[in-house]
C-alpha cells in the first residue's frame, strides 16, 4: 500500500552552505559535513601569537606533514559533537551498569590478594599514561589544522580523560574508596623500574614539538602496543586465572579501542597516501618511537606476562601499519 | 547587599526546581520571562537536593540542574546535597 501525503511544498533556494556545495555539489548535506568542513578560519589573521610569533594563529606549518587539503581527514565515524557524546553516553551507560553490578555484588572481595596486587601494579598506573594521552591529543587538537582532524583529536583527548577516570575507579573499587590503591599505583608509576622507561617516553611526548608526530607516537605506536599488552594479553591472563570479572570494568576500553582504531587507521592511511614525503616522514617517526617504546615496554611486558608478549604486541602494531600502507 | 540570581529554562522539570527553591528561600523573587524563569535573592540562594527530590518524587542529582540552567550570578558552592550561590562583601 502506498500512502500519499499531500503537503504544500516550499522549494528551498539552496540545499546547503556554499562551501559545502563547492566541495560536494548542490545537494542536501549531512550534519557531519556542515559541522566540519571549512569551519575553521584560514586567512587574514590580525595578530601573530605572542607565544609563537613565527606562526599564524591557525597555521598548517606546525607539522612537517603536508596536505593539499586538510579536510581530507574525514572521520570514518563521522563524529560531530552531537553524535560523539551520544555514542559515548551509550558506552558509559553500559559501563555504569557494569561498575554498579561489580560494586553491588562486591566482586572485588572475591579476588585473591595476588590478583589485586597485579591490578595495582599493572592496570591502575595506566591512568597516568592516559592522562599523558589526554595532553597529547589536546596538543594535536589545539595546534592541528582543519576541523576534520582537530575535532577528532579533541574527542580522543576527552575520551582519554574518561578512561583515566575509569581506571581510577577501578583503584577505588579495589581499595574500598580509601584511595590507597591509587596512592600505591602512583608510587609504582613514579618509582618501579618496570614503568620508568614508559614514564620517560610519556614525558618525552609532551615536549615533542610536531603535533602530528605526537599523534603518531601516542595514538598509533604507544596505544597499539599498550592495548595489545593490557587489554588483550593481560586480560586473557586474568581470565585464565579466575579474575574474568575484571573484564566488566575494562569493557569500555575494549569498545572504545575498536571505535577509535577506525579513526586512527584512516588518519594514518590518508596522511601516508598524500605523498611519498609524508609516507617517509611517518615511517621515520614510527621507527624512532617504536624503538623507544619497545625498549621502554620490555620490562613491563616481561614482568607482567613474560615470554613473547612484547613481540606479539609488536606484530599487532606492524599489522596496522601495513594496513595503512606503510613500510611497503 | 547584592543579588545573586539563577535562570532556568521554562519547562516542566524547572517548575519543580523553582518550587523547591521557593520553599527553601522564601525571600527569593521569581520572575517569569519569555521561555525562562529568573530567580533573584539578596546575598545567598540555595537549591537543596532533598527538597527537589520531594517535589519530583524521584532521585535527583544536583548536577542535573545543569540540564535546565541558563545563567547564574554569584560564587558557586556545589556538593552532593546542594548548590548555593553567594556574594562575599
Amino acid at each position, binding site marked *: 500500500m502506498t500512502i500519499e501525503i499531500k503537503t504544500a511544498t*516550499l522549494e528551498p*533556494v*539552496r*540545499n546547503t*552552505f*556554499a*562551501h559545502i556545495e563547492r566541495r560536494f555539489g548542490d545537494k542536501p548535506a549531512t550534519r557531519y559535513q*556542515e*559541522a566540519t568542513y*571549512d*569551519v575553521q*578560519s584560514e*586567512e*587574514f589573521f*590580525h*595578530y601573530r601569537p*605572542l*607565544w609563537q610569533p613565527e606562526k599564524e594563529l591557525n597555521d598548517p606549518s606546525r607539522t612537517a606533514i603536508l596536505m593539499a587539503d586538510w579536510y581530507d581527514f574525514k572521520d570514518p565515524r563521522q563524529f560531530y*559533537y*552531537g553524535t560523539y557524546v*551520544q555514542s*559515548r*553516553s551509550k558506552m*558509559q551507560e553500559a559501563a555504569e551498569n557494569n561498575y554498579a553490578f561489580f*560494586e553491588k555484588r562486591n566482586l572485588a572481595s572475591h579476588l585473591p590478594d595476588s590478583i589485586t596486587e597485579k591490578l595495582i601494579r599493572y592496570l591502575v598506573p595506566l591512568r597516568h599514561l592516559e592522562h599523558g594521552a589526554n595532553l597529547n591529543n*589536546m*596538543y594535536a587538537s*589545539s595546534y592541528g589544522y582543519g576541523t576534520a582532524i*582537530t575535532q577528532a583529536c*579533541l574527542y580522543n583527548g576527552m*575520551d582519554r*580523560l*574518561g578512561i*583515566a*577516570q*575509569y581506571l*581510577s*575507579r577501578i583503584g577505588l573499587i579495589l581499595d574500598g*574508596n580509601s584511595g590507597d590503591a*591509587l596512592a600505591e599505583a602512583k608510587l609504582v608509576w*613514579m618509582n618501579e623500574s618496570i614503568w620508568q622507561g614508559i614514564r*620517560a617516553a610519556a*614525558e618525552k611526548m609532551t615536549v615533542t614539538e610536531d603535533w602530528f608526530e605526537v599523534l603518531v607516537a601516542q595514538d598509533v605506536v604507544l596505544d597499539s602496543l599498550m592495548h595489545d599488552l593490557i587489554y588483550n594479553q593481560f586480560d586473557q591472563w586474568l581470565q585464565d586465572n579466575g579474575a574474568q570479572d575484571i573484564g566488566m570494568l575494562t569493557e569500555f576500553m575494549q569498545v572504545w579501542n575498536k571505535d577509535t582504531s577506525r579513526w586512527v587507521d584512516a588518519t594514518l592511511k590518508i596522511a601516508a597516501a598524500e605523498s611519498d614525503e609524508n609516507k617517509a616522514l611517518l615511517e621515520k617517526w614510527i621507527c624512532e618511537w617504536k624503538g623507544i617504546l619497545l625498549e621502554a615496554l620490555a620490562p613491563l611486558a616481561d614482568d607482567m606476562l613474560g615470554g613473547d608478549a612484547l613481540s606479539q604486541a609488536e606484530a599487532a602494531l606492524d599489522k596496522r601499519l601495513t594496513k595503512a600502507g606503510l613500510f611497503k | 547587599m*547584592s543579588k545573586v540570581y539563577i*535562570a532556568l*529554562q521554562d519547562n516542566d522539570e524547572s517548575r519543580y526546581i523553582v518550587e523547591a527553591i521557593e520553599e527553601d528561600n522564601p525571600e527569593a523573587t521569581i520572575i517569569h*520571562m*519569555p*521561555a525562562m524563569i529568573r530567580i533573584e535573592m539578596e546575598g545567598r540562594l540555595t537549591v537543596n537536593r532533598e527538597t527537589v527530590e520531594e517535589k519530583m518524587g524521584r532521585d535527583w542529582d544536583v548536577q542535573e540542574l*545543569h*540540564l535546565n540552567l*541558563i*545563567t*547564574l*550570578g554569584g*560564587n*558557586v558552592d556545589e*556538593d552532593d546535597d546542594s548548590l548555593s550561590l553567594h*556574594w562575599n*562583601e
Partner: protein
Amino acid sequence: MAKKLNIKDKYRLLTRDLDWEYSYEDRKEAFPFEEFEGIKITDWSKWEDPFRLTMDSYWKYQAEKEKKLYAIFDAFSQNNGHLNVSDPRYVNALKLFLTGVSPLEYQAYQGFAHVGRQFGGVGARVACQMQAIDELRHVQTQIHAMSHYNKFFDGFQDYSHMHDRVWYLSVPKSFFNDARAAGPFEFMVAIGFSFEYVLTNLLFVPFMSGAAHNGDMATVTFGFSAQSDEARHMTLGLEVIKFLLEQHEDNVPIVQKWIDKWFWRGSRLLTIVAMMMDYMLPNKVMSWKEAWEVYFEEAGGALFKDLARYGIKMPKYAETIEKEKEHISHQAWWTFYTHGHAAGFHTWIPTDEELDWLSEKYPDTFDKYYRPRWELAKEMEAKGERFYTKALPQLCTTCQIPMLFTEMDDPTLNSFRDTVHNGERYHFCSDGCKDIFEDEPEKYVQSWLPVHQIFQGNCGGPDVENVLSDFYRMNLGEDNMDMKGSPDEKRWKQWKGVA
C-alpha cells in the same frame, strides 16, 4: 561495604591526582607559556575546581541535551518552522549571528583547547578542556540550527568565508584573535572572565528571549541549550580570577589592566548586539539599555563589589560605558543602514510603531538625536531616493569598528583619537581603544583592517562592487541592500500568500 565518597574527594581522586612530577624531561618545556606574561603561580594545587563533572556524567548529561536539541531541529525543519517567525526582517539578526558570532565559538574552542593543554595545573586544564569541547558544541549546533534558514533565506550561505574577509566581521574576528594571540592567562581573563562571566549574558539571554518572542524555536533552543553550558563557563571564569588574585599580589595590577582592556573591547564588540536588540527584533523584549542595566550594571556591579577585597576596581571607562548605552545601538544601525549596499544582510527604516517604542525606551536621547535622521530617511525613501553612502568608512585601529561613535558628552560630535607610532599615524574611536593600542603597539599595528586592505588593492577591485561580489562572495542584489524589494521579502510574501 566501601565508604561513600563525597563529590569533592571523588573528583580529586579521579582527576586531580592524575598528573605527576617529571623526572626525565624539563616540565617547563612541556608547559612553556606560564611565565612570560609576568603572572606568578606559586601553587597550582590551590586551584578550586569550579565544577566537578567527571567525563561519564559529562557524556550522559550532554547527550541528553543534544538529543532534545536535535529532536527540535528535526521538527523545526520538517514543519517549515521558518514560516512561524514574526516577520522576515527578524531573520537578518540570525545572518549577523551566524557570520559574526558562531565563528567566535569556534575560536573559543581553539583558545580553550590551547590553554587546556598549556596550563601546568591539571584542575585548570581539565576545566578548560571541557569548555573547549562545549564551545565546539556551540558552533556546531548553531550551524545546524541555521542550516534550515540557509535553505530559504539569502545571506547565510558563505558565513565562514565572509567571516574571514568582510569589513564589519573583522570586529568580532579580531576580538577573538586578540585574545588567542595573548598569553594563556590574559586569554582566560579576556574570554573566561570578562566575556563569559559578564558579556555573554548580554548576548544570549536577552537575544534568546527575543528569539522566543519572534517565533524562532530553533534559535531559542540552541541558545538556551548552549547557555546551560555557559553556567559552567561562568563559574570557571570567576574561579580563574580569584585564583590569580590569590596566588600573588603582583598579579593584581596585571589582572586589573586586562580587565580594563577586555571590558572596553567587549563593550565595543557588543555594539552589534545592541543594534540587533533595538532594531532587528520585530517583537521587542527589552531595550539594549535595559539589558545593559540588568546584566552589566546590576550583575557586573555585584561582581566587582565581590572582587573589591582583592583590590580590583570597576573597569576603567565604566563611566563612559554607562553613557554609551543611550547611544550605540542607534549609531550602529544608522551606519549599517547607510552602508546597506555593502552589508551581507538587509537593513531598513524602523516602522512608525518601532520608532515610537525607541522614543519611549530612550526618552533622553532618541527624539533629540536619532529620530530626526529616520524621519529624513523616510522622506527620501518615499521620493524613491533610498540613501546609501558612497564612502568607505574609516576604521578604528583597535576595535576595527567604523568611526561611528560620538563623544558621549556631545552626541553631535564624532569621536576621533589618534597617535603616532614609528612615524605612522593610527586612528581610534575612543580613549579606550587608543590606550589599548599604546600599551601594545607592536600587536595592533598588525591589524588587518578591511578598508585599508581594500585601498591597498588586496581585496580585488577595482570597484567596491567587485570587492563585494568577488572577494567577499556576496550575491549582490540578493544578500545586500534594503529589506524592501529583496528576494527574501518576495519569497516571504509568496509563502504567506500576500501581495
